[in-house]
């Protein structure tokens, strides 16, 4: 059998297994091993499993993954975000739609110390929903804003998705983190502006909240010191080259843990829960990354990836048309796959094509995270929407999905901006690492 046929058969088998509910990590690994076995031989196939598992399992870069997951868990359990929300509300609450804008800013701030969108929604929603209900906010706007803003945690560093992308594509995680800062802030601002504009046009959707004095606003900033300090130490350390992302993750965990301990917000039980969950989530991501590497190695042997690149080059299609096709593909995949599956399953094909088209791998990391964010709020998977629904069970799922829709449009508009102005992601990277 010629390699291309084996590759096509392999892809069909893998998609069949995934469709039938076989865990995606094993669907990829088994197909990769089988294909490798047919094309190269039994011994080499066995070696692929061993090399990929051991190499990735002891790759120093991988350390950042469990530690950043743990950092998010610790922030979630220690309720550090309560102070953050209180401060943001004092600054933005008085604007039209101010409480929804507060939710967006709160999620963005929460994202600065965690990389989990689910934790962001679960932390900010219980604080902001009662306030928005009290001020008679339109529930479609309120829940849509919260579910969508939660995704910002994935883009604003430290981001777990960016760590996984960096590991898989061998792109510098430090560069990716720095690249995520401006796009994260721009997207948060765009969400905020959308809410503000909508509430200016129709003030009943988001009545203004309480106004605070400048004294109260400024004094509330003091409470933000722990979160700001951790963020600036972690990101600042990477930015000035004081430490690697791996070291930054360790420092971040120590910082959050010490802060929460000093504030009396930790018990042995919550710390243990955070640790166990961080280890389990890391193992789950690890399995899918191994699977991705094995299928990637198999596709490499078949030459199908190079064939795809050559085929696209021969088509002579504009690179932005190819990118638009990828956007459409990710929108479809995001509706049927989990975000991790979507990421690892497509990277073996998409990443080489993106590189051959001349796109920057760091820029593409930011781009793909935005696509992942959209997947988190689009039906039928849209985990953030389900989380939001469980935190506000009286609001029907359909209402939340309707509320999320304008934010998906805003995010897509942001993708266009990011593509038109790649410097939005690359400016700080060039300033920090190449100037």
């Amino acid at each position, binding site marked *: 059998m010629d390699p291309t046929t084996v590759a096509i058969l392999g892809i069909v088998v893998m998609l069949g*297994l*995934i*469709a*039938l*509910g*076989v*865990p*995606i*990590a*094993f*669907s990829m690994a088994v197909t990769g*091993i089988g294909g490798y076995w047919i094309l190269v031989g039994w011994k080499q*196939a*066995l070696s692929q*499993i*061993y090399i990929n*598992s*051991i190499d990735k*399992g*002891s*790759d*120093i870069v*991988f*350390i950042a993954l*469990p*530690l950043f997951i743990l950092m998010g868990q610790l922030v979630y359990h220690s309720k550090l975000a309560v102070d953050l929300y209180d401060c943001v509300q004092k600054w933005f609450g008085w604007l039209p739609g101010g409480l929804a804008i507060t939710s967006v800013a709160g999620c963005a701030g929460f994202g600065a110390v965690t990389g*989990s969108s*689910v*934790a962001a*929604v*679960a932390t900010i929603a219980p604080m902001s929903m009662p306030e928005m209900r009290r001020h008679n906010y339109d529930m479609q706007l309120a829940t849509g804003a919260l579910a969508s803003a939660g995704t910002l945690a994935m883009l604003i560093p430290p981001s777990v998705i960016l760590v996984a992308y960096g590991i898989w594509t061998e792109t510098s995680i430090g560069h990716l983190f720095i690249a995520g800062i401006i796009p994260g802030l721009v997207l948060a601002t765009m969400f905020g502006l959308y809410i503000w504009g909508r509430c200016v046009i129709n003030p009943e959707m988001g009545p203004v909240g309480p106004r605070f004095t400048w004294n109260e606003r400024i004094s509330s900033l003091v409470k933000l010191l722990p979160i700001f300090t951790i963020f600036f130490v972690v990101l600042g350390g990477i930015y000035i080259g*004081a*430490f690697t992302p*791996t*070291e930054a993750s*360790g*420092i971040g*965990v*120590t910082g959050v*843990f010490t802060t929460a301990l000093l504030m009396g917000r930790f018990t042995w039980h919550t710390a*243990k*829960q955070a*640790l166990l*969950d*961080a*280890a*389990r989530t*890391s*193992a*789950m991501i690890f*399995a*899918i990354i191994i699977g991705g590497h094995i299928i990637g190695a198999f596709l490499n042997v078949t030459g199908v990836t190079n064939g795809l690149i050559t085929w696209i080059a021969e088509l002579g299609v504009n690179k932005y048309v190819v990118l638009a096709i990828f956007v459409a593909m990710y929108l479809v995949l995001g509706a*049927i796959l*989990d975000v*991790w*599956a979507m990421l690892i399953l497509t990277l073996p094909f998409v990443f080489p094509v993106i590189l051959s088209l001349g796109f920057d791998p760091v820029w593409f990391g930011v781009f793909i995270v935005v696509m992942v964010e959209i997947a988190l709020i689009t039906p039928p998977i849209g985990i953030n929407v389900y*989380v939001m629904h*469980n*935190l506000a*069970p009286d609001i029907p799922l359909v209402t939340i999905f309707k509320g999320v829709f304008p934010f998906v449009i805003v995010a897509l508009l942001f993708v266009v901006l990011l593509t038109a102005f790649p410097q939005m992601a690359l400016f700080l990277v060039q300033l920090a690492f190449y100037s």
Partner: protein
Amino acid sequence: MSSIIELLIAGIDKGADALHWFAAVICIPAMTIVITVDVVMRYVFNAPFDWSIEFNEACLLVILFGSLPYTTKVNGHIRMELIYRTCKGGALRLANALWAMAGLFFSTLLAIRTANEIPFLIKIHKYTEFLGIPVWALRCIVLVSAVLMALYFLHLLFYGVRKIADENDLEGHIAEGKN
């Protein structure tokens, strides 16, 4: 017969839980402390640890492989359930069998390859450079992890899916409204 199987699976559960606990509660904090102290030693005393990378690599291996059997036990691997949820009767049994065989294939091959490597590593006396950790001991953790996973998949193949809730699954808890 069924009580023997129950005893066996209880034993496997205990092994997976213990390994997961050790990985999470011992290795993650140890790794965090070493990383933090190493940074402090480097900048404050200009004396970083030579052995920190080696130690962290070993911890990472234990964390990831140590938690894989537990993740398998609680069905914590990512899957697409759109079609699976609609399966009933024979279709469900087929889907479960495919799931079990795919996992069994992967974990058995990993176990075989690792088991082949261990005697060789013992024979050549391979130790880590600074801490002198025997490399075969680390591979034993990979082997135990692969064997435990293989046993879970065998159980899945013959006895179907076990409904085990993960008490520590934050996303699951929130999504199910238990938070």
